[in-house]
């Protein structure tokens, strides 16, 4: 797949083939992270995060590719690994040659925001299968509410909408609860 094809596919929402294609870069990233003090587990985590960031970035219509997509992906990995090693209080300045040097601003990356999104992702795992399916079909696959109501056996479009609202309230409420309890824990 060419870079332009990948970008077009991601913008259309067909992310599966681009992911498969980009995943071929993983061995390279893995060996670089492993030889810079990381392990295979963290390399995988970082690579997955970088794929998500790349897809989010590319989905933005105003995004313009200035380097090869694989170079960009590599740059994101470098950025994330630096971020991770800073968090571990290890100041390893890594030399990843021939790659883009990206900053927080380039990626509109914000640690607090990332934390919150991580939290919300865990919350999504706790709100029940039906809610999760509903959310995924509506927000990710971008299906019509009518089709979703049929696939998930809701009596009407309105009841599906109500259910979605309730799920959303539940998720946001749960996230708030976890946040409060974790800050309390830190204060103690």
């Amino acid at each position, binding site marked *: 797949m060419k870079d332009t094809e990948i970008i077009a596919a991601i913008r259309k929402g067909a*992310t599966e083939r681009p992911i498969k294609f980009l995943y071929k870069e993983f*061995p390279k990233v893995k060996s670089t992270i492993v030889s810079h003090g990381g392990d295979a587990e963290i390399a995988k985590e970082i690579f997955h995060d970088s794929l998500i960031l790349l897809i989010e970035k590319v989905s933005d219509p105003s995004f313009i590719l200035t380097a090869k997509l694989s170079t960009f992906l590599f740059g994101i990995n470098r950025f994330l690994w630096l971020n991770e090693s800073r968090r571990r209080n290890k100041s390893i300045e890594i030399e990843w*040659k021939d790659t883009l040097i990206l900053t927080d601003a380039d990626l509109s990356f914000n640690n607090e925001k990332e934390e919150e999104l991580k939290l919300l992702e865990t919350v999504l795992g706790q709100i029940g299968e039906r809610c*999760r399916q509903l959310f995924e079909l509506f927000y990710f696959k971008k299906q019509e509410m009518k089709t979703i109501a049929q696939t998930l056996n809701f009596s009407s479009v309105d009841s599906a909408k109500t259910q979605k609202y309730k799920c*959303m309230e539940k998720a*946001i409420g749960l996230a708030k609860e976890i946040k409060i309890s974790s800050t309390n824990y830190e204060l103690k």
Partner: protein
Amino acid sequence: MRNELKIMDEIESYLSNELSETERSSFENRMLDDADLAEKVNHQKALTQAIKRAALRSQINTVAAGGGGGFSFTQIFLGSIGVVGIIGAVIYFVNQNKQEEIVSTSTIEKNVEPTTVVQLSKNNERNFQLTNEIPETIFSSIHQFEDIQDNLDIDPVDFPVNSHHGSTINGSSHTVNQSSDYDACDESYSGTNKDRKAMFPGGSSSLKRFIDKNLYYPKSASDKNIECLVQCDFHVTEDGLITEIEATCLKIAEEGGEQFNDIKLIRNKKLVNAFINNSTHVLRTMPIWIPARNKQGNPVLSYQRLYFNFDLENGCLVYQLEEDLN
């Protein structure tokens, strides 16, 4: 409830940029006045993003686990055409009583035919050698290498060839084909900086010689005028062993023709495999590499990518890209 649903819909159309310019600005003004609404928008925005991420993550995990999300109907259809094609090919081969050319150990399991003769080397059964018959069309890679020699290897320095070399590693799946041509360089090499890249023993000229000697153009492909570009990724471990070889066929086409489509690709699976096997054969039979070193001078795992371009006019060309070296 009605009212809340309405607000949710409004927020959704705001977030997905479906509002017109005037509606948008009026909504933003409302957000300024109504802190409650602004908070709801933020929550909903973050939640939407998290939902997309979770979905993407599960897709990525499927890919990581090696699954492709199951077979689609078209794939099954194309697959069955491929099967018919392969059966046809087998019958054809039996009738012709034709000898296969270079077949590596990994390809012979599935298409065992009485006519296919693969001779393993006598002195070392693990050390796979080419078939008894050298293909008619051997493309030398020699004159191509002279032009790109600098790109071929990682380290431009040619190390002095030493007369002794390291012992063969036992018990590993890696076959080591040691000969005096590919001796390890002097271990006591000390530069100003201790970190260096992984290197084929003897440097680039040695790698060139090794490839010249071991890489062949698959005869079945050259008979059909088919060209291919194979990308090989592999790791060089701390011990200098080559592991995790992963080969992908980036491009396969008839000479001067278009890239094969899916159906043609499945029908020519055997050729693709021949190209991939000939490429990986070279890697699998390589002697022990000199591992990369970090700044402290300790050997570390490193990653390499080689491209094998099988070109009918120019023969086999192996190269590395500058951007892959890091």
